[in-house]
């Protein structure tokens, strides 16, 4: 392993906490990851030396704030392999999807179709339903395979000439399955549809090269990539951003305002009305920079070794059923499971008494839960700072839950 796990862990002060008398074993990274000193320091520097509004001021602090904010945009762009003017700071991943659904959505006509999947997070379903009730578009959903992947064999059947956008989860927050983007892009392009990926669960696992994916929109959340909450990112092709009307109106997004008519600022400012989450964006920039400093070959190998350890251990406990791909192929370090005869919240509660933090429930993916006829699952989601001790504590907790609760 060419990265120093102890040194990495030391960058996350929260990990040295004691919870219910046990060391903290934080395995709920898919919900929110922890944040390193580099991010906390960047936010603190802004708050203590450059706190001011951006864009509008001419004084020293405003200059510093604007420089740090635009610097953060450049860091995010570098993380995604794109240029800064294509990066829009939003309030989160959900906010970014809503922006696209509202703004790009307003360019669609009644009868146009959007293709989603049964694997989607509610945040990539509900904004499209809102658009449907506003403007009469239609929604289709690709099915999932038994392994918990989007069933791409259904693409030819479900894509139509009226399909304008295919919006899919890049990595599932429930099954960890990662999307075969190439196949989706080829199929979508054949009917002229645009492609959006929900990268909420992919972005925490290393830098991306969006141009090589040949997609149109990408979204993710700051708090899942070791940054602050209250901030997220939309990347879109410049020609699309140029064609899209604003989502929110207000300060900073205008060209010129009169009561008769207002013109829009060019992107990205057109989509950043009002005072943005400045400190959060700066923290997110620092998080992207921090991530780019990691050796992701080594980190990925580490994360996947932990995933294997978790899957092997769970399979050794009678009555567990893992929801998701059984191999590590095209998969990220998220492991969801059901424990027969024990409700997922009870599993999570027992794990809490072992100092282990996991997520239990439907994971904002009710269509998927309905498909597998489950009320919910317990989800272990792994970050670079996790270690064997975290996985072993989780396994001990699950075994204990199985013993006392059924």
């Amino acid at each position: 392993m060419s990265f120093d796990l102890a040194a990495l862990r030391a960058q996350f002060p929260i990990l040295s906490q004691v919870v219910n008398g046990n060391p903290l074993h934080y395995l709920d990274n898919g919900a929110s990851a922890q944040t390193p000193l580099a991010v906390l320091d960047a936010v603190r520097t802004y708050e203590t030396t450059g706190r001011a509004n951006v864009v509008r001021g001419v004084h020293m602090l405003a200059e510093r704030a604007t420089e740090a904010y635009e610097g953060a945009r450049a860091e995010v762009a570098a993380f995604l392999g794109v240029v800064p003017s294509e990066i829009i700071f939003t309030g989160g991943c959900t906010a970014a999807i809503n922006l696209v659904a509202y703004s790009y959505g307003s360019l669609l006509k009644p009868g146009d179709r959007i293709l989603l999947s049964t694997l989607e997070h509610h945040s990539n379903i509900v904004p499209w339903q809102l658009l449907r009730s506003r403007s009469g578009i239609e929604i289709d959903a690709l099915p999932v395979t038994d392994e918990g992947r989007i069933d791409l064999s259904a693409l030819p059947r479900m894509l139509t000439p009226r399909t304008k956008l295919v919006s899919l989860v890049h990595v599932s927050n429930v099954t960890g399955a990662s999307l075969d983007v190439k196949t989706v892009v080829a199929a979508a392009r054949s009917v002229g549809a645009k492609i959006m990926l929900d990268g909420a669960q992919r972005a925490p696992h290393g830098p991306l090269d969006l141009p090589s994916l040949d997609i149109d929109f990408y979204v993710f959340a700051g708090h899942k990539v070791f940054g602050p909450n209250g901030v997220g990112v939309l990347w879109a092709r410049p020609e699309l951003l140029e064609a899209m009307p604003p989502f929110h109106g207000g300060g900073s997004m205008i060209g010129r305002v009169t009561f008769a008519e207002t013109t829009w600022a060019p992107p990205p400012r057109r989509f950043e009305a009002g005072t943005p989450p400045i400190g959060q964006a700066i923290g997110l920039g620092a998080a992207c920079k921090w991530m780019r400093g990691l050796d992701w070959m080594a980190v990925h190998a580490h994360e996947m070794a932990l995933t294997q350890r978790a899957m092997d251990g769970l399979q050794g406990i009678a009555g567990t059923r893992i929801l998701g791909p059984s191999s590590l192929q095209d998969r990220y370090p998220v492991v969801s499971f059901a424990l027969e005869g024990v409700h997922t919240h009870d599993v999570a509660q027992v794990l809490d008494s072992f100092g282990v933090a996991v997520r239990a429930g439907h994971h904002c993916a009710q269509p998927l839960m309905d498909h597998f006829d489950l009320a919910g699952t317990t989800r272990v989601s792994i970050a670079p700072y996790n270690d064997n001790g975290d996985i072993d504590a989780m396994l001990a907790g699950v075994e204990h839950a199985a013993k006392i609760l059924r």
Partner: protein
Amino acid sequence: MSEQLYQERIVALAKAKTGAGKLAAPTKSARRDNPLCGDRVTIDVALDATGKIKDIAHQVRGCLLCEASASALASVAVGRDAAGIAALRHEADRALGREEGEAGEPFSAFTPVRQHKSRQDCVLLPFEALKDALS
């Protein structure tokens, strides 16, 4: 802390499954969902002419706390009307520390849930469903 949450009494109540199932001919039924966790309780009641519960059954798709609560409720619901059930709700609220005073049986079993605010709705969901069924 959570270790004590699953005390034997709660586990025993849940495993007893008192009143689990459906009634063949309910006078009324009601279903309640907890949108946060997806838990669901359906309660059937058979009522006499004065509105008193003659028979009760519940289906729980939920956690152990929810099952234990439904079971506890079913064990003492027969013979009570809406006001009588409302009185039981106060027992549960006392057990959860939401009201002053000692909780009566069998609801005192839920006192360990006091420290777990996020789980209290699990205990209360069957009460909500039963209230709906009686209204």
